[in-house]
């Protein structure tokens, strides 16, 4: 593996760049809400960054809830065998 091609993502510094880049993209997207008029159905959707906030909370909540679900439903791989 030593003389193998080194991939961009193999460098932890680049993974960090992706992670922080994601933060920047998110903040920029939320800030965009200041610059146009939203045509939405509900009042709560007009809040600045509502969809970003919703997406983040939904996703984190989903993963944490699923982690909890594992306690109830997870069995050994050969459970049915």
């Amino acid at each position, binding site marked *: *593996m030593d003389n193998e091609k080194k991939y961009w993502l193999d460098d932890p510094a680049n993974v960090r760049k992706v992670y922080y880049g994601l933060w920047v993209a998110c903040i920029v*997207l939320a800030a*965009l*809400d200041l610059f146009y008029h939203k045509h939405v159905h509900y009042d709560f959707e007009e809040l600045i960054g509502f*969809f970003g906030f919703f997406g983040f909370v939904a996703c984190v909540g*989903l993963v944490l809830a699923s982690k909890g679900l594992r306690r109830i439903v997870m*069995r050994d791989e050969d459970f049915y065998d």
Partner: protein
Amino acid sequence: MIEFLPPGAILILGAALVPLLKGRVRQAYMLALPLLGLAQLYALSGSAPLEMLQFSMFGYELTPVRVDKLSLVWGYVFYIAAFLSVLYALKVERPGEHVAAMAYSGGAIAAAFAGDLITLFVFWEVTAITSVFLIWSSRTERSYRAGVRYLVIQVASGVLLLAGALVRVHQTGSVDFGFIGLEGAGGTLIFLAFGIKAAFPFLHNWLQDAYPEATVTGTVWLSAFTTKLAIYALARGFAGTEILIYIGAAMCAFPIFYAVIENDLRRVLAYSLNNQLGFMVVGIGIGTELALNGTAAHAFSHIIYKGLLFMAMGAILQQVGTAKGSELGGVYKSMPWSATFCIIGAASISAFPLFSGFVSKSLVMTASADNHYTLVYLVMLFASAGVVEHAGVKIPYFGFFGPDRGIRVKEAPLNMLLAMGIAAALCIVIGIFPRPLYDILPFPVEYEPYTATHVITQLQLLVWAILGVAVLKWYHIYPPELRSVNVDIDIVYRKWLPTAWAYSLRAGGAVWNSASGAVTGWLQRTYETTYRYHGPEAPLARTWPSGYMAMWTAILLLAVLLALYI
């Protein structure tokens, strides 16, 4: 000439010739059939709406073929899916798998054009019986058993459909397959039949059980037809049935929790498929023109991107030997093209702007908000963020990226890459130019997906959801992929019922043994007593030779009693 064939017949009849052909001739022939079918459909569409091949049976007017705008959407995309699946499966040697797959897809197409419930029932069962061979073709004990469970449930759906159809014919005097509705026992039975195939909550588990046990190519075929045929049938028979809105919302939400923790990536996609069906079912429940357009459009784009994702995971399974997240990592280095196509599929299912999911799912979302189903709208918004998590990030990440485990394999063969490439191209073309798709929908579309509000709010939702995953991963809170089985409703019929059955057999056996032991013991004693007193040389036999007869009567009684008991 081919205009007079029923749609789907080209694939069903054409399948019969496949075993007779070999090598490149067979490959060319199999690729040509769906294209021929597509051409035929295009020719028929000019004269739609149209009914063909009517005949009377037992006094009922059957309409085996009805071509209208709703059935055409499914017809087109089913033929496209058949073409992509043939291309993906081109190198499969065993002709039996090709025959089953082509007859299966042809059956689904024929069912989508059925104008009466009897024809629908016939092809409903054709899809059930042919498709199980795609599962059994894995040739493992697991796949055999999963296939049997699958077949039992699929055939049960057909039986319910037939029963419902007969009740309905009795009540209304017509076998026509149009709007059905929930009124009457017939409608309810048909609703249940469709619900099983559409994987409604609690009726869903055959999907996640069976699809991941099929062959690499079989799962790609399966993902396209069965469930979407059920969606079509619901759209035709139960549009505007309000309970579907809530069933659909539940379908959007609950499978994604399982998708997050499932280790087998093809099973993750099966849960994800279930979730996508939820959006379509909500659209049918709302039942407005916009909502039904949304269901049709979403079925169209979904069949292509879901097929693409199953192809990518199938490519991993074939090249690496496993599709379990806990075993994979760094595969993108060996399979860069598959990884790229997978990302395109992931972006499409996540509904990123410029990809197909964006222009189709939003029709259903908008319809729900327009009609003030606020809670349902929010559930779908939550589910959309969930799709990003399990299909947008988890599938490409655990499939191709993730920590390098030193897996070095060959890239997928050319035919598989071509199938994935064409599917990926379609995802992007539909995403950027949605008009041709909108033009074939059942109703005129005035909807414009690319507004500043829609693009920015959607990007916010998706990118922040990705950030959510990244933050959990960054702080090592994200649950790892584990070798495991997650029990779902299938625990009822795979564990509890068999256990209860075995237990009742054991308990019943014990009762039987002690009961029959007591009876035979009693009879034995009776016999001995009788013999002692009435037998030869016995005191009572001395004077009465009829003692023999008494003994034989007793023996006869014993025999009768035993015969009755056994």
